[in-house]
């Protein structure tokens, strides 16, 4: 069996009173576009810090392309490019100097061609000789991405890369990241924007209080919510037989769940029987937000 891109076994990490990670097991295959989702404090960033060596695990093993992140850190770190969540930069240097130094840290000497390519792809070329201090927030974010890519890592980790980023940059960033994924890079993404994960990731893990509470393909997670939701605006009262299906109600507005689309027609029939007129009706697809809330709720019960 070939090594996974990322392999995390029985990993624990505690910060004082807080059990940040509580027995994480996760395997991400090469070439995946993987999403790591969860509320604030779920342990996403802690997990990334352990993978990248910014923090050390209390127990458990983490491997990148089969290389242990503690014992074989020199190789494992070469395999990994991390875009940190915080907008950090070194105010002493220009963009090009920053990227050259970062290449050097990874032991690469003549890296100018690739640095130019990365700068070009991220729209940084005309800022190459600008000091980091003078860049806007969005530009600094691009440099962070470029820094993570200088050593052409097969595994790329993005920790909420689009937080506070304008729409245009978000689009171009995802275009570039998708391109990298197509070229064979494994992508691990944490995000708060569920629609982002939904649009990009092929597989998703959900974290809550340091545990993986769901792990499946994006499709299956969405499929877990079979059926759909109907939003209705009615003239008259909702028949009592339909009340158990109501999730939300405001005056004449009702939001109902249906086990499947085939349940739609019986519902309409009931309404007709009671002589109730539908003023408005919209059908809603399940989204990750809903899956996520459901998972979190289920986990609490």
């Amino acid at each position: 069996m070939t090594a996974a891109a990322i392999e995390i076994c029985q990993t624990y990490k505690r910060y004082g009173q807080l059990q940040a990670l509580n027995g994480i097991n996760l395997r991400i295959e090469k070439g995946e576009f993987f999403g790591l989702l969860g509320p604030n404090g779920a342990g996403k960033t802690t997990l990334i810090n352990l993978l990248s060596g910014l923090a050390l695990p209390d127990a458990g093993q983490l491997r990148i392309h089969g290389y242990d992140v503690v014992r074989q850190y020199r190789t494992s770190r070469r395999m990994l490019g991390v875009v940190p969540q915080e907008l950090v930069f070194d105010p002493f240097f220009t963009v090009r100097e920053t990227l050259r130094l970062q290449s050097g840290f990874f032991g690469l000497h003549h890296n100018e061609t690739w640095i130019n390519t990365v700068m070009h792809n991220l729209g940084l070329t005309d800022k190459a000789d600008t000091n980091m201090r003078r860049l806007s927030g969005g530009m600094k974010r691009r440099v962070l991405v470029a820094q993570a890519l200088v050593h052409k890592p097969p595994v790329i980790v993005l920790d909420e890369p689009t937080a506070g980023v304008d729409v245009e940059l978000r689009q171009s960033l995802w275009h570039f990241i998708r391109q990298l994924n197509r070229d064979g890079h494994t992508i691990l993404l944490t995000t708060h924007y569920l629609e982002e994960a939904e649009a990009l990731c092929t597989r998703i893990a959900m974290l809550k209080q340091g545990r993986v509470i769901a792990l499946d393909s994006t499709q299956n997670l969405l499929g877990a919510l079979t059926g759909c939701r109907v939003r209705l605006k009615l003239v008259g009262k909702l028949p009592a037989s339909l009340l158990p299906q109501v999730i939300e109600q405001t005056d004449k507005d009702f939001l109902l769940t249906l086990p499947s689309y085939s349940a739609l027609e019986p519902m309409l029939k009931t309404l007709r029987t009671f002589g109730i007129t539908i003023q408005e009706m919209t059908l809603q697809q399940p989204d990750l937000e809903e899956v996520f809330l459901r998972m979190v709720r289920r986990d609490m019960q």
Partner: protein
Amino acid sequence: MLSFYSLFYKEILRVWKVGFQTVMAPVLTTLLYLLIFSHVLEQNTNVYPGIDYTTFLIPGLVMMSILQNAFANSSSSLIQSKITGNIVFVLLAPISYWEFFAAYVLASMLRGLVVGLGVYIAALWFSQPAPVAPVWVFLFAILGSAMLGTMGLIAGMWAEKFDQLAAFQNFIILPLTFLSGVFYSIHSLPPVWQSISHFNPFFYMIDGFRHGFFGLSDFSPWLSLIVTGVCLLGITLLALRLLKSGYKLRH
């Protein structure tokens, strides 16, 4: 090896980019010390026979600049990187703890030695002490800058805020340098203070360094060499141990 070199180069480039503040400013400060102290004390102080006070003072001031700047370099670079967060770029890279150590300490040594040389050259205008034993001068400059560069590394790792680092500097480094015999021979001190000075490792570094200039010192340079060497070894082992464990760097 290239990782080490890049980190070393980054540290040097940082110093170079703010050279006015990192090299020129300390040279000027030290020259002011020289100007004022020698003016005030020239007439009534004679530490070693045949050596006027200004000449006596210069090696001490040179060594003091070396020590202070070596400390300032690693400590301020680290605390800045920690507070602004850009230390992650170094921590994410495959840089071993000894490469990290060597890069920060060597860059600090270089800054200390450049400032020391600058002070010496500028001081030649006042008096021209030529070293009688340059090997001692060189040796103590190297060992002293290495020691303070390493102490700066430890202080930078330990401190979480600028004021903590300032406290380390003002309550430990500054008293140790000022009470090390830069401005006087400890033989001119009351006996109690003389014995206390014997516990100050900085005293041996300055005494040994000055021996290289005049062939005269409070103690044998060999003793100073042993004390300085042992202290340097101890502090290096401590720094390497802290770095290996990821102390306050890898949480």
